[in-house]
């Protein structure tokens, strides 16, 4: 049945058969016998002392089975929600790591902090009872902005975290940077805000937990990007459930973007509660609930300085950032604005000295953690913006200043001054390709045409690199990771030659079921239709670290590639026996094992059959069966990058920015499925454009209320915001991954915000505008134009 469809082909996605016909299986589709409904009661205050909770009215409400609070969790001696990274300051002092109870104890620290869990027969009964819970709060002033949080006299979230500073982190050679600044011919300076974002996956978070007393086993179905990690963190560190007694299933998941790659308190509470009530419990978040409980992203305030010589060569780069952590440390929280930020400040340039200081700050907001790109969009934005500022101030063309500082293709591998060593890349090639694709040479004509209609047109560049394929465990361990970051794959060849792959990554929109099947089809010569990919169930998949940080193909795909190599190696042994030849003489090509130089051969199916029906089989040297497993731990990060060019048109009357052209030429290494890569680029770019032009999570200082708490007030990018994009790849091969792949899941989100804002600033540069904060909303642009005393266009 079917054909081999291998690397480089663009078959339609296997998973779309079920998604497009309404046959997906999401957590909220699952029903368990005797299932009850759970609802969380959340703090309406940003900061308050939790004086007491009176459960009596809620417990008396119809259908209520249980009401659980932080006191109950404390009585059961449950653990704090763990942080997966422990960073240290310049002196080696560990970060402040206050406990993160799964239900608030003593205090609430953000609007949405969980104070109780109500279990009832139906969702309506649980909601009604939740409204009857009497919580006595002593409201305290909230602090939501990082600048405000570190000021003397600011409200303090934790008694033992002075000035709300979790960690004062640094990276780089401070003295060398200071020396370089003293010698500089020019210093460009820039203050900027990286706006806070809310992920908004299409499917809200949800969970079902069930306890089976007969086997003393728990099952948690959850909307997670990494079920094995949830099993470990929750089982071993929070609930004290042995790993073999806990099954975590993440079935079809409707988008993650990072939001679902953390261990959430809701998962722990519902699992704990399921045993207490001895019934399965389902919880499904509303969209509004997601806004105040899904981990947020970004939220930096930064001062940056770039030192240059008289020719525009970068001498040194200094960055001081305040990064918002929210009310507690989430799973990867402190890692994002530090280890995934500072090491990216070299960009694609030969800047010899870089210093970065990041103060990681607690505030009365939802905990901040990884969101698509995670640290790297923030770094890229700072660097690519200040390069434009420097070019403008020194009167050097923006493309020219980039060329003068770019790492030449021949200089790879390239060691940066901020830890990372790029293995491969060709930023100049990406830039040249993008200049042509974006028709930059005729931009002047388009700008003049816009001007005739009273509009301002601008062009913006972002030549960037990122680090993904998270992550080499040894390297991550040195940076504070408390776990490994390898991946595993099992290739099970059935007696009839079909293949089932069990892999530890999780597919929630990325097309893994297709991409990974193409790898197997190519490497084993089996039909694409004869390969199925299994993921997302700790009882079915051996182990895994999940999907985030553009790691699935890079790390998981590498494990899969290694496992298929093992299958071929074993197949050769079987073939050698059956064909009465020496193992070294067996060749494997296009699904056939043959004796070199002869026409004697066995098909892949024949070898699989022999492995399971070992009548004539070398049992003395080989075990029956054809199933191999591999774990892969990368030796380095991978470094995709490229050049993005945005073209915008601004209506000066209203301040509206319209993105009119977008071009991306990216180096993502080997491309397995070009259609899927293009889709990842499209989605990633749209998310970056969302940050640049539309999205903004706004909190009210003092009360800690989230003012942008719904889709009515938080503007997601929409189809009609986007022009047709020009997407191309200009790939160099990664030198250390088995297939030369680099990853493509986040590049769009990382490269695009700077390109868009650089275009906006370019369009307004004739008015003296040098920077525009994100999102570049109509009101913000209009205000800049007012301040620039723009004469109103006469009609």
């Amino acid at each position, binding site marked *: 049945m079917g054909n081999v469809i291998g690397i480089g082909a663009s078959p339609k996605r296997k998973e779309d058969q079920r998604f497009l016909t309404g046959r997906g299986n999401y957590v909220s589709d699952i029903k368990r016998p005797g299932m009850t409904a759970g609802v969380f009661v959340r703090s309406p205050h940003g900061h308050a002392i939790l004086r007491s909770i009176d459960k009596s009215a809620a417990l008396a409400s119809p259908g209520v089975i249980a009401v659980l609070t932080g006191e109950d969790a404390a009585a059961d001696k449950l653990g704090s929600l763990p942080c997966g990274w422990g960073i240290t300051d310049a002196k080696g002092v560990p970060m402040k790591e206050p406990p993160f109870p799964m239900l608030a104890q003593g205090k609430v620290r953000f609007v949405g902090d969980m104070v109780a869990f109500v279990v009832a027969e139906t969702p309506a009964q649980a909601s*009604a009872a939740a409204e009857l819970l009497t919580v006595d709060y002593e409201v305290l002033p909230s602090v939501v902005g990082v600048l405000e949080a570190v000021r003397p006299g600011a409200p303090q979230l934790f008694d033992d975290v002075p000035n709300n500073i979790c960690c004062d982190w640094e990276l780089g050679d401070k003295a060398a940077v200071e020396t370089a600044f003293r010698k500089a011919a020019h210093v460009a300076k820039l203050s900027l805000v990286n706006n806070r974002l809310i992920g908004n996956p299409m499917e809200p978070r949800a969970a079902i937990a069930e306890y089976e007393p007969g086997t003393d086993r728990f099952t948690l179905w959850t909307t997670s990007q990494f079920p094995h990690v949830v099993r470990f963190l929750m089982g071993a560190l929070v609930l004290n459930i042995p790993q073999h007694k806990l099954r975590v299933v993440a079935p079809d998941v409707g988008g993650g973007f990072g939001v679902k790659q953390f261990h959430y308190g809701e998962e722990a509470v519902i699992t704990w509660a399921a045993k207490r009530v001895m019934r399965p419990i389902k919880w499904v978040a509303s969209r509004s609930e997601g806004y105040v409980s899904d981990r947020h992203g970004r939220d930096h305030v930064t001062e940056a300085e770039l030192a240059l010589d008289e020719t525009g060569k970068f001498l040194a780069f200094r960055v001081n950032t305040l990064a918002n952590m929210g009310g507690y440390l989430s799973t990867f929280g402190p890692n994002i604005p530090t280890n995934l930020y500072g090491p990216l400040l070299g960009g694609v340039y030969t800047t010899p000295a870089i210093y970065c200081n990041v103060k990681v700050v607690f505030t009365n907001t939802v905990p901040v953690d990884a969101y698509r790109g995670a640290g790297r969009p923030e770094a890229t934005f700072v660097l690519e913006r200040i390069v434009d500022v420097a070019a403008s101030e020194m009167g050097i063309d923006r493309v020219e200043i980039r060329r003068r500082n770019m790492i030449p293709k021949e200089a790879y591998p390239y060691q940066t001054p901020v830890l990372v060593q790029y293995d491969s890349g060709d930023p100049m090639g990406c830039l040249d390709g993008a200049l042509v694709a974006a028709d930059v040479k005729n931009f002047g004509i388009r700008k003049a045409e816009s001007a005739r209609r009273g509009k301002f047109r601008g062009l913006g560049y972002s030549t960037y690199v990122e680090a993904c394929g998270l992550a080499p465990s040894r390297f991550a361990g040195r940076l504070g990771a408390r776990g490994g970051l390898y991946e595993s794959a099992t290739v099970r060849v059935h007696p009839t030659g079909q293949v089932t792959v069990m892999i530890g990554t999780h597919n929630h929109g990325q097309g893994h079921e297709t991409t990974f099947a193409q790898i197997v089809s190519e490497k084993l010569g089996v039909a694409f239709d004869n390969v199925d990919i299994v993921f997302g169930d700790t009882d079915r998949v051996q182990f895994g670290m999940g999907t985030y940080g553009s790691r699935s193909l890079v790390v998981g795909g590498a494990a899969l590639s290694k496992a298929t190599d093992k299958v071929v190696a074993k197949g050769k042994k079987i073939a050698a026996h059956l064909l009465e030849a020496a193992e070294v003489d067996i060749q494997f090509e296009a699904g056939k094992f043959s004796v070199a130089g002869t026409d004697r051969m066995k098909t892949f199916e024949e070898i699989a059959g022999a492995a399971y029906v070992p009548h004539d089989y070398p049992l003395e040297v080989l075990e029956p069966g054809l199933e191999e497993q591999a774990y892969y731990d990368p030796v380095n990060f991978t470094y995709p990058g490229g050049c993005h060019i945005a073209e915008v048109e601004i209506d000066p009357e209203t301040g509206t920015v319209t993105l009119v052209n977008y071009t991306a030429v990216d180096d993502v290494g080997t491309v397995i499925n070009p259609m899927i890569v293009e889709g990842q680029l499209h989605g990633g770019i749209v998310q970056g454009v969302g940050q640049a032009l*539309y999205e903004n999570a706004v909190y009210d200082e003092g009360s800690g209320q989230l003012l942008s708490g719904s889709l009515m007030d938080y*503007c997601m990018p929409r189809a009609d915001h986007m022009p047709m994009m020009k997407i191309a790849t200009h790939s160099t091969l990664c030198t250390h991954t088995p297939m030369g792949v680099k990853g493509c899941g986040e590049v769009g989100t990382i490269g695009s915000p700077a390109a868009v804002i650089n275009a906006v600033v370019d369009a307004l540069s004739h008015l003296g505008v040098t920077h525009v904060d994100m999102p570049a909303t109509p009101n913000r642009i209009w205000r800049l134009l007012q301040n620039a005393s723009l004469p109103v266009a006469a009609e």
Partner: protein
Amino acid sequence: MKPFAYHQPDRIPDAAKLLTSIEDSKLLAGGMTLIPTLKQRLASPPALVDLSRLGHLKGITDDGATITIGAMTPHAVVAASKLVKAKIPGLAALASMIGDPAVRIRGTIGGSVANNDPAADYPAGVLGLGATVVTSTREIAADGFFRGLFETALEPGEIITALRFPMPLKAGYAKFKAPASRYALVGVFVAKFADGVRVAVTGAGSGVFRVPPMEEALSRSFDPSAIAAIRIDTDGLTSDIHAEADYRAHLVTVMAKRAVDAAVS
């Protein structure tokens, strides 16, 4: 959503009786505002009185001097109506800009006018055209109908049955959409009649309002340039995370000019 009783009367008097006899009961027209508030448990009326079975409240008629649109006529029907497009194209254009296709198919003109959301589109059209609100008990001129933030002249139990629009010489609507909700951040409806021009603004303040200086200027010269220099006062205008009051004031002028442009083109 909390439980509620559901009534689907066949006659207006029955609907009115239910509405007055059940305290805090609500009329259900298209439900585009009411249903989300019920789902979020922000409102919990004991009963809903659904008007959907009152077939005669749907439809558009023309008596030569006016166009009458039944209260239960969905936005999409108004937007696509050959009659409205021919006689008051600005009103059809307004209807086509409301919400998204799903909202336009469910949402009704009567529901929108009765709700009087400060950022809804129809109040600008109704006030800008000087329409008459026809109810179960009387007729109310638009100028006396809208009373600010979600407030109208409707009495308890009074049900809007139709909107009657006079036919202008020219009319146009320009809307600056709030980026997330796509309600009017500022929307301006301009209508020219033989005896003068009316200008109505939605989205900018706590309720729809007219701009007499613009009306006077446009009555003298129905051209965008006539109002380009008119600035409205920021007093009473809304400031929120999407737009500050002075920006809204600026947009009123810009959108008014564009509405005139739309009316004359």
